[in-house]
């Protein structure tokens, strides 16, 4: 774990990553708070905070007395949200750097196409 960011956020992000890559399918059970705490060797309250954040965001939902499950449609919603973040975190700074170097949009497109092919 990265020690410079809140751990509960990292727990939430890891669960999101597993939902995005399909290893946690929709309607499947999420590991219990105690299992998450034991696996990551973290305080159970921290694990709970991470999971609660995803419940509040509608990514997970609680079945009383059974546990936490991945909400239907969670994967698609996460993907849309991550695309927006990708644009803000990577594409915008890329454009700033490209402008500083005097690169045109067309030149940047060519570079991207080359990397992605």
């Amino acid at each position, binding site marked *: 774990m990265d020690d*410079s960011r*809140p*751990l509960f956020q990292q727990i939430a992000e890891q669960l999101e990553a597993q939902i995005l890559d399909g290893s946690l399918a929709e309607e499947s059970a999420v590991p219990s*708070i105690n299992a998450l*705490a034991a696996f990551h*060797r973290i305080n159970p309250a*921290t694990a709970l*905070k991470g999971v609660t954040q995803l419940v509040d965001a509608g990514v997970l939902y609680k079945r009383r007395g059974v546990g936490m499950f991945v909400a239907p449609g969670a994967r698609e919603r996460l993907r849309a949200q991550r695309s927006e973040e990708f644009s803000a975190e990577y594409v915008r700074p890329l454009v700033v750097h490209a402008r500083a170097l005097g690169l045109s949009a067309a030149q940047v497109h060519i570079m991207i196409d080359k990397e992605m092919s």
Partner: protein
Amino acid sequence: MSTAIEVAGLTKHYGQVTAVDDVSFAIPEGKITGLLGRNGAGKTTLMSLLTAQEFATQGTIRVWGEDPVENAAVLSRMCFIKESQVYPDSFKGSHVLRSAQWFFPRWDVELAQELVDLFGVPTNRPVKKMSRGQRSMLGVVIGFASRADVTFFDEPYAGLDAVARKRFYDVLLEQYSESPRTVVLSTHLIDEASHLLEQVLVVHEGSLVIDANVDDLRGSAATLVGRASDVDLFATGRDVLDRSHIGGIASVTIAGLNDADKALAASAGLEVSTVSLQELIVRRTGANPAEEAA
């Protein structure tokens, strides 16, 4: 959230030395609280005061609302595992475990045996012939098997290797998950233990310098590097932990920053890097990071 222990204006003098200096804080019930600080900062004295093994020069201590001094009802619900616990010379490990049952009404014989096996404590060896690590493990066994409502572990892993320490963390989480209780863990291995903590108290030269929720603390300090004039402008009026200059470039470490502050610094052209919890505490307690890591 209920409070297990409440301390106000606590001071302890040993002759000319002030070991604890006008400290006030609360330890929440049912959480794992870290008591952090450098060697000699006053951690052990503080825990000795809370468990009435030492008496305060000034100030008040309330455990579940009561004064713990000479208070059997309160003290029987607390367990303090001291780093340098002394046992009678003739005692073997098994004697220590047997006599522990007299002091802790909720002593769990099965758990004690299970942990003795897990940690490999040589219970038929006289305690004074045990290695440092074996004595630490014996203390850990007592701490968990006591099933006390509040358990203090003072540097519980002195002399323990990395494997045994991991086992300690695993047992702590397992026991805590099974039956939540108040745990106070004193350690200087901040990076290892910080993930297990919910609250932290940091003491330095007898004073309390941090009393915070770990999540609020983690990521709240950052080092900013940039043109000295920009750096100084941003740092004005903020909680500066550390500052250095080279030529026209300055670097400052500032505590108590939120995401908006960091974004502001970045937009002012400063390079922002977040400081780890360990580094934040090291800087707050005035130590040279390289020296502390050694």
